[in-house]
């Protein structure tokens, strides 16, 4: 690799999730010396054989930054190649690399958003022979814009917003049930970017990531360019049946995570990208957080936590003019309730003074209201769609 100066020339339209590349290189002591001189890191552990021999490692070890630089070579020369613009690295190191050592540097594109022109590559540095793990490096990147004779100076905010000048809205859980209807409606007036495991059908931008992973915020932050107007948190890890006493720790962790950590993560990302006129943070709660249905213990816990989290965020985000609210629908025969029997639905309906169940159109209308200009002073509340129920 070190003697090969030919770089790949993949264009943005060539990129897709799953594309992979790798190379093999042997590292010698003289390479550490050269890197030390170039970077200024002449720590004897890396460049002095005698001093390093007396250390716990028993010999010279490679700079961690050297391994990151090799990943940079992968990205800049192979995947995507010469048109890449790296916007961030994050690295974790495993075993130390002693010299001489033959390394395999491999990487796979794990996220690529065509409309946002940004993506993420997951790279590994391993021993070429037995695969011993030395480093994991995440790389976020975008692609260089082509220059053409007709391009005029363009307002950077328009570029950052992508298509047109519609406000940009981040939506979790746009792939199914209520989320799908919301995305379809909101895409008429907003540039909707959905995030989550399941991509919705239709022409919105989607960033694939697991909201239960430890680094989803970093992955999202690095993939998402430009300002945001709002975030709508619809995603939820199901509604497990059963009381708290029969619930597992993992079940409770997931429910509470979506009601606290995920919401707070969205708030943090939004706060860094909000524009001076402010914005909106909205989450979909549930009436069961108030009825305290013991047969849905973990779900009640998560949705109750969601309301409390939002009430606190409302105060903290108020100086940024971000209005924060929860919409609490009553029973709806969609999503988690889509398998309810006719009898169950009649039973629920009998408890609603309005004489009907909450519909997705009610929720869509409530979301539109809270996103609109007229709702900028409406914050820190739960908007109940219960048809008159207490």
């Amino acid at each position, binding site marked *: 690799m070190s003697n090969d100066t030919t770089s790949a020339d993949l264009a943005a339209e060539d990129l897709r999730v799953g594309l992979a590349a790798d190379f093999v290189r042997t590292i010698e002591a003289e390479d550490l010396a050269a890197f030390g001189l170039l970077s200024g890191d002449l720590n004897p552990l890396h460049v002095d054989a005698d001093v390093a021999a007396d250390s716990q490692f028993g010999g010279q070890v490679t700079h961690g930054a050297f391994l990151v630089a090799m990943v940079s070579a992968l990205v800049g020369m192979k995947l995507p190649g010469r048109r890449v613009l790296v916007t961030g690295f994050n690295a974790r190191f495993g075993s130390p690399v002693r010299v001489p050592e033959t390394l395999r540097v491999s990487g796979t594109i794990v996220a690529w958003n065509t409309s946002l022109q940004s993506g993420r590559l997951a790279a590994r540095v391993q021993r070429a022979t037995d695969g011993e793990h030395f480093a994991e490096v995440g790389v976020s990147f975008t692609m260089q814009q082509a220059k053409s004779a007709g391009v005029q100076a363009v307002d950077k905010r328009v570029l950052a917003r992508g298509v047109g000048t519609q406000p940009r809205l981040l939506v979790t859980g746009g792939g199914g049930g209520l989320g799908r209807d919301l995305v379809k409606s909101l895409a008429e007036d907003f540039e909707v970017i959905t995030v989550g495991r399941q991509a919705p059908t239709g022409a919105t931008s989607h960033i694939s990531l697991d909201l239960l992973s430890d680094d989803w915020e970093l992955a999202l932050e690095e993939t998402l360019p430009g300002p945001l107007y709002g975030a709508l948190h619809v995603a939820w890890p199901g509604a497990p049946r059963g009381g708290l006493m029969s619930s597992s720790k993992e079940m409770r962790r997931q429910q509470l995570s979506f009601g606290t950590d995920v919401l707070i993560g969205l708030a943090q990302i939004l706060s860094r990208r909000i524009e001076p006129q402010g914005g909106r943070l909205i989450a979909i709660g549930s009436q069961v957080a108030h009825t305290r249905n013991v047969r849905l213990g973990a779900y009640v816990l998560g949705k109750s936590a969601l309301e409390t989290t939002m009430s606190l965020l409302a105060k903290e985000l108020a100086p940024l003019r971000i209005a924060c609210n929860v919409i609490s629908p009553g029973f709806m025969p969609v999503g988690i309730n889509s398998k309810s029997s006719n009898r169950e639905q*009649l039973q629920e309906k009998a408890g609603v003074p309005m004489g009907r169940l909450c519909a997705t159109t009610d929720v869509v209308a409530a979301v539109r209201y809270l996103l609109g200009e007229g709702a900028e002073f409406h914050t820190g509340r739960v908007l109940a769609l219960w048809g008159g129920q207490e």
Partner: protein
Amino acid sequence: MEDRRQRLTVCFTQVFPNLPLERIGEVSAVSYADWDSVTQLLLVGLIEEEFGIRLAIEEIASLTSFELLLDHVQRHDER
């Protein structure tokens, strides 16, 4: 089904004479002030007589709308 609906409607008009006919199909205990525990028992008594059925105590409390009562009568006939 339509016959049962009409017969049930008649039961409702007897217990709730002030309830407009067009609202009977949608009425429930939470939306109509005159539907309380006393009128519930009156209604159940009429329904049992009209349809020749007996409702268990635990069932009565859960049948709190016209639609639920119609559904219950329907199921009883299908057994």
